């Protein structure tokens, strides 16, 4: 698989890949190159960072751009109750009894096996429980999995995403698995870049709605995001851009210009926090707006 990726990258050229990804995501050029180099040496890459910074989107975009197989990627949303069978698939006993084990339908492949020859994107990899981690480990290391005694070959490129361990419901990756992964950190873009990303994403969300989004609001929002991060509440770019789009849509519905109070209101509605945290965040927002 790494050879395939290398050939693909050589054929397309790095600049071409960067250009294509840049159509979906901005400000993650550095991270993109890190991911690519990890894939080219055959090391599974895990993107680490808080929610809403485009980790999954980046993984999908990379897989789509490289298009190693058809479909370009298999995506699994990992959760703590996932079992090894969920990952590698199992034999359908009912079909096997009627049609025999040779029948193509008697085996239900799991994502790890389906991803043979393409990219496997494992969302929230660190939510996997230790049992599922062990199953994944074998697939990564030995490129085959055992299902009821049958050895099934599966070779794939793994891109995972993970939230930092302070998030709830996160398992520690086992030592053996962690040793085989490359961790790439996705950071909040700086203020100027964040502003342009917010504007761009909000416009995209609004679609053909004829609204003019004042860049002043995006600036306030990006300032707020950085202040909030300093105060210990990292903000999601996704939520912020939707808040901006939401405010604009609200203003459009009332046939007036977008104002600061719209943004404030939509922020309250779009932030995924409890009410106390929201109050703190609103104070930060007011401070950012008044400066």
């Amino acid at each position, binding site marked *: 698989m790494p050879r395939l990726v290398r050939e693909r*990258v050589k054929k397309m050229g*790095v600049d071409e890949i960067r250009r294509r990804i840049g159509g979906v995501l901005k400000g993650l050029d*550095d991270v993109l*190159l*890190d991911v*690519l*180099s*990890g894939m*080219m*040496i055959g*090391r599974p890459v895990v993107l*680490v960072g808080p929610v809403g910074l485009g980790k999954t989107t980046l993984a999908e975009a990379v897989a789509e751009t490289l298009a190693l197989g058809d479909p370009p990627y298999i995506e699994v949303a990992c959760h703590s109750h996932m079992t090894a069978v969920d990952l590698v698939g199992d034999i359908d006993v009912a079909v096997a009894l009627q049609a025999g084990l040779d029948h193509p339908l008697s085996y239900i492949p799991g994502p790890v096996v389906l991803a043979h020859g393409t990219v496997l994107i494992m969302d929230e990899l660190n939510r996997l429980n230790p049992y599922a981690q062990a199953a994944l480990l074998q697939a990564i290391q030995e490129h085959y999995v055992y299902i009821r005694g049958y050895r099934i070959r599966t070779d794939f490129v793994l891109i995972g995403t993970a939230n*930092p361990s302070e998030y709830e419901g996160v398992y520690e*990756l086992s*030592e053996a*698995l*962690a*040793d*085989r*992964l*490359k*961790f*790439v*950190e996705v950071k909040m873009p700086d203020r100027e870049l964040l502003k342009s990303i917010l504007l761009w994403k909000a416009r995209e969300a609004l679609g053909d709605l004829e609204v003019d989004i004042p860049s002043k609001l995006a600036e306030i929002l990006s300032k707020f995001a950085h202040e909030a991060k300093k105060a210990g509440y990292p903000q999601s770019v996704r939520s912020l851009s939707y808040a901006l789009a939401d405010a604009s849509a609200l203003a459009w519905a009332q046939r007036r210009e977008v104002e600061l109070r719209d943004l404030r209101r939509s922020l309250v509605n779009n932030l995924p926090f409890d009410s106390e945290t929201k109050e703190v965040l609103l104070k930060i927002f007011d401070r950012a707006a008044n400066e």
Partner: protein
Amino acid sequence: MNDLVELLAAVYSCLGGLSIRSLIYSIEDVYVRAELGDVDWEKVLEIIAQNLAGTLKMGPSAAKEVIREAITCSPRLREGAPTLAIGSVGDEKAPTLAHLVNRHVPVDATPRVKLEVVRRLGLPRDRILRSYSRVVGRGEGWHVRGAVKSLRGYVPGTPFADVDLIRTATAFRRKVVMNMPISDFDIFVREYSRTADKPVYIALDVSGSMKEYMWGDVKLRVAKNAVARYLRQMASLRGRVSLLLFNVDADFMWTPYEVHKYLREMLEILEYVYAGGGTELASALEVLYSYGVREAVLITDGRTADVEKTWSLVKKFKRLHAVAVEKSDLLKQIAKATGGKYQELSPKLDMSVIHD
């Protein structure tokens, strides 16, 4: 490429216990990444950190800082890094139990206080032998507590057990035969030699070499059992004992205290004593000398890093008894030079011979 490999070798030797797989991948990764785009020094560090983050068990940015420090390998980092502390001779620093405890309480705190600290440290406990609680008496009679120094006449208030029945019976018999009245002087009472009037300082080696096996048991445990037996004997001798632990550094586990008062505490503290680090006998002698001690018992295997320094210190001592964990010429010579006793540790060693 050599520069990068050497850099990683430096990181590896400083941090220790890194996964080789991850190191190899990070070399590959740096080169591939350099093909894809511009790479500067910070980026190289970042790529190495990304690959080592898993084995270091930290986030990529934290790992980057650790690696940055590991390249120069500051001593702070070296101390914190996990190492295998098995070296028998060397200068490997590892705090003994005494060091850990004395961080929280003064050196001369009572064993009771120290035990309380030890318990809160949450260290594993290693049971020591509970048998051999019977006092090994030397001298005559049953209830000998120490060597019998002399016999004297009865005075009111003398404990009944101290009466020498054979002598007394003989004297009574003689008086009866001679038809003479029996007096207090015919009752013979033993007087014990209180050999334990001076405090006994025991320096116990807790270096990594004490983890080795001997007589089907860990050397340290055998030594601990011997000390425990000796403590029980000293409890009935009403003596005072101090325990000093040393590997590369030395510190008092407890300063001289009456054993009969604190026997239970002392035995329990002994159960928590663990081994680790290099050996430096001179450090123990240095500490003892600075406390004005001129007589001590050394329990060690005699593998010491600095023999000359040890000898120069030995000359300042009046008497050093040696309990050798393994046959050691050095210890034999030390004991001979200072007129002390040389014994070899065995599961049934009786340390109280040093009082003879």
